[in-house]
């Protein structure tokens, strides 16, 4: 009889591990305790970065907006700010302010969506249903403002498409009043509900040191006391004129992440009200050239999940030479593997949901140059053959 205990591996995914997106995780368990974890991504790779090289600057705006269905506006904003920087154009103040209003509405939408997903993972479907019902309010506002519930197409290179009207302002303020009152209730629920607290308090504790080591960003880092918010660190669009007060917590557990995200909603409500009150007058769009001289730039913005990074290189034509996108999930996902080790297997979906992952936004092809593979550039045929060989093994 074999006396050495065998490793028992629990595979989770690639179909819908915790969320309705593909990702594969393998957890080695000893009883109920996780002793090792690994992650494999790439199931939703769409080749968007390559596709940008065959489209012009305007067409890419809409392509890149579709990287993420939840934080679409912030992708378009990052791209617009980058391309405007390359072209030496500054969008008018009114356009910048409207960009921020839409971005903050999107943050409200994203955080309420996350609250529902996380509650659902904890088995608290009542909270899930209520938060998603209330999310309809902000989606209705976005629809009235931009015409779409998702992929708003509010941005243009050099400005925005849609203006703010007094009727819309009234609608937004009314919606925010309802949401603010509901958010107070949610903060009370996530900090006092005994059942939910059993799943969140003291679970997946991330220390301040781990945040630095793993390079965590966004609300995940802020829940551990690290002030990582580009709206404060490097204000873009109208955030310099309308500063935000960052929300942080020190506990670093899942409860702190709930609280940080919910308290950020209050900050969003306050900022939107302030901007609507002091909305600058003026044009909505600055003139953009069709072709952009050769140059390269980076553009960083604070997406609902953390820092979103764009590298944009132009080559003098109306098409980009290269666009590289790094979404916040990639930075935060490493923490799942570290935090899962030592925790209960049943807590793993909660830990995963705690970073608010978005796999489809995140998947990129990365080629690693090694002496074994030889050539640095692969042709299409070589890449295809590599794929066939990979799955034949």
């Amino acid at each position, binding site marked *: 009889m074999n006396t050495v205990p065998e490793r028992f591996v629990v595979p989770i995914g690639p179909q819908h591990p915790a969320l309705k997106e593909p990702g594969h995780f393998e957890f080695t368990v000893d009883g109920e305790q996780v002793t090792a974890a690994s992650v494999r991504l790439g199931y939703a790779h769409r080749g968007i970065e390559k596709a940008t090289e065959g489209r*012009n600057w305007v067409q890419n705006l*809409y*392509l890149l907006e579709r990287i993420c269905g939840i934080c679409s506006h912030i992708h378009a904003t990052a791209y617009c700010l980058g391309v405007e920087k390359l072209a030496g154009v500054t969008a008018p103040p009114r356009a910048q302010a409207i960009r921020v209003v839409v971005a903050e509405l999107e943050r409200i939408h994203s955080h309420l969506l996350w609250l529902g997903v996380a509650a659902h993972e904890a088995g608290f479907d*009542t*909270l899930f249903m209520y938060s998603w*019902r209330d999310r309809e309010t902000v989606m209705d506002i976005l629809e009235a403002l931009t015409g779409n519930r998702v992929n708003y197409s509010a941005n243009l290179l050099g400005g925005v498409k*849609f203006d703010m009207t007094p009727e819309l302002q009234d609608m937004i303020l009314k919606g925010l009043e309802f949401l603010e009152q509901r958010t107070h209730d949610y903060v009370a*629920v996530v900090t*006092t*509900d005994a059942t939910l607290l059993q799943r969140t308090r003291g679970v997946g504790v991330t220390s301040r040191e781990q945040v630095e080591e793993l390079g965590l960003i966004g609300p995940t880092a802020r829940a551990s006391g690290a002030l990582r918010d580009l709206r404060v660190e490097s204000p873009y669009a109208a955030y310099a004129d309308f500063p935000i007060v960052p929300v942080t917590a020190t506990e670093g557990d899942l409860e702190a992440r709930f609280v940080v995200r919910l308290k950020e909603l209050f900050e969003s409500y306050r900022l939107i009200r302030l901007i609507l009150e002091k909305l600058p007058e003026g044009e909505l769009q600055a003139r953009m050239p069709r072709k952009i001289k050769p140059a390269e730039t980076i553009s960083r913005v604070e997406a609902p999940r953390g820092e979103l990074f764009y590298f944009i290189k132009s080559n003098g034509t109306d098409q980009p030479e290269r666009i590289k996108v790094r979404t916040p999930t990639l930075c935060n996902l490493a923490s799942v593997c570290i935090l899962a080790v030592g925790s209960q297997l049943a807590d793993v979906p909660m830990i995963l949901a705690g970073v608010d992952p978005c796999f489809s936004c995140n998947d990129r092809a990365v080629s690693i140059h090694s002496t074994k593979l030889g050539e640095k550039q692969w042709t299409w045929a070589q890449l295809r053959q590599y794929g066939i060989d990979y799955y034949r093994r």
Partner: protein
Amino acid sequence: MKGHLLLQDAIRSLFRRAATHRYPAERTATPERLRGKLTYNPEGCTGCCLCTKECPANAIEIITVDKANKQFVMRYHADRCIYCGQCVKNCRFGCLEMPNETWELASLTKTPFTVNYGEDADVERVLAGLVTPEPESTP
């Protein structure tokens, strides 16, 4: 009721109407800015093709019937369109519009998704194959 804050909400909801709408039996007003099916008014169109050049989905073709007399037919592919409204923004002559009227576009066949807009006589000529459309630009 500490620890069961949502319970009150849940019990109250038992006596309320459902939050969801019984669509299509029950309809809500369409938002004013919703972008529906694209419409084209041939009057004023100069055939500059700014709408086609920057369409992210290659959903628009402008077919030149008679360039000198500014006669054009616009072939619109509603199934490719992503309803971003960039063409409407680009058109300097106000020929394009995305009204909020037609947005329930589901169909059992693909035929209704290709729409030819223009003067009736021009559309007939295009459909009869008398005008050869320029080759489509590949994305």
